[in-house]
């Protein structure tokens, strides 16, 4: 997956939740949105990108992706048949 596009998508989600005054709620909101709407191969790619420094990711989505990273073992391997 094009990582620049995924970074943009994650930041866009982050921008919506940035209005939320409670940071924890905002981070959970972003993580939950990505969890519920992104195919696992997209989540895997953004998690891998975040592990490598997360260039381009804003602060809130970065925190949300870190939250997803903790669940990453649950993700199936995309393309494993």
């Amino acid at each position, binding site marked *: *997956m*094009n990582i620049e*596009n995924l970074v*943009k*998508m994650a930041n*866009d*989600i982050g*921008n*919506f939740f*940035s*209005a*939320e*005054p409670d940071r924890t709620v905002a981070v959970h909101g972003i993580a939950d*949105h990505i969890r*519920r*709407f*992104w*195919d*696992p*191969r*997209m989540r895997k790619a953004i998690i891998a990108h975040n592990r490598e420094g997360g260039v381009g990711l804003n602060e809130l989505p970065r925190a949300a992706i870190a939250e997803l990273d903790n669940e990453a073992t649950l*993700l*199936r391997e*995309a*393309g*494993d*048949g």
Partner: protein
Amino acid sequence: MALRDYDFGTPPSQSDKMVTLEIDGFSVTVPEGTSVLRAAASIGIHIPKLCATDSLEPFGSCRLCLVQIEGGRGLPASCTTPVAEGMKVCTQNERLAKVRRGVMELYISDHPLDCLTCSANGNCELQDMAGAVGLREVRYGYEGENHLKAEKDTSNPYFAFDPAKCIVCSRCVRACEETQGTFALTLDGRGFDSKVSPGQNQSFMESECVSCGACVQACPTATLMEKTVIEKGQPEHSIVTTCAYCGVGCSFKAEMKGTEVVRMVPNKDGHANHGHSCVKGRFAFGYATHKDRITAPMIRKSIHDPWRVVSWEEAINYAAAEFKRIQAKYGRYSVGALTSSRCTNEETYLVQKLVRAAFGNNNVDTCARVCHSPTGYGLKQTLGESAGTQAFDSVMKADVIMVIGANPTDGHPVFGSIMKRRIREGAKLIVADPRDIDLVKSPHVKADYHLKLRPGTNVALINAMAHVIVTQGLANDAFAMERCEPASYEKWKAFVSEERNSPEATEAITGVPAETVRAAALLYATGGNAAIYYGLGVTEHSQGSTTVIGIANLAMATGNIGREGVGVNPLRGQNNVQGSCDMGSFPHEFPGYRHVSDFETRSQFESAWGVTLEAEPGLRIPNMFGAALDGSFKGLYCEGEDIAQSDPDTQHVHAALRAMECVVVQDLFLNETAKFAHVFLPGASFLEKNGTFTNAERRISPVRKVMPPLAGYEDWEVTQMLSNALGYPMNYSHPSEIMDEIARLVPAFAGVSYEKLDRLGSIQWPCNEKAPNGTPTMHVDQFVRGKGRFMLTEYVPTQERTSSRYPLILTTGRILSQYNVGAQTRRTMNSVWHSEDRLEIHPHDAEQRGINDGDWVGIKSRSGETVLRATLTERVQPGVVYTTFHFPESGANVITTDNSDWATNCPEYKVTAVQVTKVTEPSEWQRQYRQFSEEQRALLEQRSSAAG
């Protein structure tokens, strides 16, 4: 189904008070306000009439429906005489008969006596009335002045106007005014000289006529007649079905001769359209039998190979083998499918079932992705259900109508006419749109406020309205605190109250004067029942979902939800957008909007379908393209959708399609996507299959087969064959069995069946034990999610910014005569009205660039470039240009970008920064497109010769 509807003569009275009278010695009790004509008709007494019909207010001009009332003077017209308690009416006696015969004699003295060769022969009210009054002679002869040589107007492609046959009953004029609201027809002249005139003595094509067909339907003679009837003769039977165009979902009678459609007539009993229609549904059905239809399956190894015509069995087996090969090589998640809003509920249900059960993944999506997916998200999050809250008829109880990002008179014309009727009755109107759409100012309709905002600033505008409502104390706190989550309401109030959300602060963003926003907000909050109607001008933005949420917030904060006359009303683009979403076409949801990760729901489907189902969401359409380009998505089954034309950033879409190893297209025509396909499975038009469509008001309506499928199979049968070939058995024998399965698995459909649809005509879901006949208005006592949820709607400017290189904003939309990608309407005479997509540009912007009306102009964005002809108009504001997207060679989506809604990836079609320059030749993309299209056409032609 009877060909001719029973005509009560005048519309029904809505009064609850009943009145009893006597007609020809029979007692009859009817609502107060009912005409004597209608009261008589209700007990089977047919008073002769010509100018009266029950779709129009009475006019009292023909003098045929005269009656005698005991104790009354003279012979009053029964159509304009209301019933009264104890009234005694005589409808037939010597005196009445004499007067009626005299009237008929005058009519016939100026009417051609060509009944045997007349197109209305067998269906002519004048002929019927002549018989009814016993006309036996016409004493006046034809020597005097008459209209018999009046010239015919055949300018309209669909109907002819023969003024020689006109009896000047004014039904057509009144239909144009009352039913359609266009006011294109007038009665010109006085007395004997009076005649029906389109516009100002123009032809129909030159006039403002929108070809809705209301005048043709109202005409009691052959004066206004469908050309198909003139050509083929009167139909002999009819079947009620549902239109396959926009989200209004009009009910029609397909009037037939054998298996040939003679005409489509709007169904008077249709619950969405009440007997009205538009130029598409009424007339543009000829595509179904167009010569471009492909009626035999075809396969090919490469998209540069000629097509090979094969049997259904070979095509299905080839497609199944390819999908299996791809999954074996690249993994289970490397294939997927797309459904379309042009498919029935049953078809989309089967496609998503095939993906989940036979492919074993959730890679299914639908074209709602690129139109109303933000509606599904936004309304689910706030109200608890991914659907509009009202019935269309609800607008007749609205006091304030706010239209934002929608153009109902073009996109949803029949509903647009209903809305205009309510506005003529006095409802106030707020329009929020960058363009001067027709509703802003048209005959007898004028917006009280036009919020002419800059494209991409909806959220700032909605926040500003919310700011006024909250800070001025106009919110309905009692409703919001009781019906919604109090904490979310308080948080939202604090957010919108911030100064940065005030109209004064947002004026620089939206371009709408603060005082206009304040006045509009005041009207919305205090003007009585206030209803919001919105369309793709709301959803197709990077903040599409945010605006939908903002709209729901406004409705909840003002208590404008949960009763008739109010609500949040998404005007769905295509006929079955609502239905395709309901049926689980999204990759994260099972039918009934339940997430795939929900264990209980998944277990229910696993048990019913006998397979283990995937718990992770699949790929959405744009993600499929991305995955195709990175090599992890290789096979696509695409039913009824044309992504190669309709989806944004065309070059990206085409590259993704080229990257796939097997693209299976099921469609009526070799559409743009099929040019990239390896398997073509011929589809069936809506006239060739059974099923249901669900319109924008959640109304499930039957689609009935009126002719056999040209290719031999209905679309659901094709999906079933493919599933069986993939190894997942499906054994439905009729779509009603599919609906029965849906009813078993989707709570909101629990009470839906074909038997009930036949009985009730249509059903608005939820339909279940609690609401066995359906639910016109949602969220009445409580929201579907329990308490309504306010959400914060921060305005985030789109990243698609203007610059010195791209100084203009391009926005896109549709036009009345064409539909979506145009695959259907381009193959009808509708192209007479719109034969090419044009770029609308403000004269000021045009002058700066040396552009004249009709010049070829290049439109260049960060994504690509195309060339269209320019139309100079002040409908668009300076700095904004506009085009439609109905013709593939226009390449409107070559320019649009991959920006999309943050929540759903719905593309941002409505905002693209562009530069416009005068040019002399097509763009490079257009040259390549023509070359590729010609190659594909040639490969199709070679198929013909191979087939012998």
